[in-house]
């Protein structure tokens, strides 16, 4: 695209929309991933109670913070090492 794109300096409508859509998809996937992982880590699966206990609530808050940190750490490492090793090829 950058090689052959000299004839059209402006991104097309479809490209602009795809870019915004993509960014929102990344955020949405991250959100649902966090729900899945932190539910697994923190919520008691016997469902004897319908409300979150104090312990579960605190665990969810910390799990969310750790998930964000891990997500960022992993992204950065992949960018560093993946660029060198051709990750995903």
């Amino acid at each position, binding site marked *: 695209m950058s090689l052959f794109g000299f004839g059209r300096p402006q991104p097309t*409508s479809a490209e*602009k929309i795809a870019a915004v859509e993509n960014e929102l998809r990344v955020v949405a996937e991250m959100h649902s991933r966090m729900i899945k992982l932190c539910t697994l880590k923190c919520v008691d699966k016997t469902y004897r109670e319908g409300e979150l206990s104090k312990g579960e609530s605190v665990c969810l808050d910390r799990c969310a913070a750790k998930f964000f940190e891990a997500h960022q750490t992993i992204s950065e490492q992949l960018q560093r090492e993946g660029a060198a090793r051709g990750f995903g090829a």
Partner: protein
Amino acid sequence: MEGLTAAESRELEQRLQKRQVKEFMTVFGNLVDNCFAACVDDFTSRALSGRETGCLSRCVTKSMATQTRLGERFAELNAAMTAEMQKR
């Protein structure tokens, strides 16, 4: 949504609505999976037992509370991360 024309914004909005429907279905589907797997275990009858129904109901309530709580945290953490990135 800076840089989009009115027509592009409309198109984008339609796609986002479609995406939201899809996401709601994913979340709902995962909830059904989780709660059914955790609560339904007795296959000696065709109808849900009182115990199973109660478990499902508590599971739904708790899953909604979990999602609300994690949604709040996600919004906070995402805002903080975005602010952090713009400082750089």
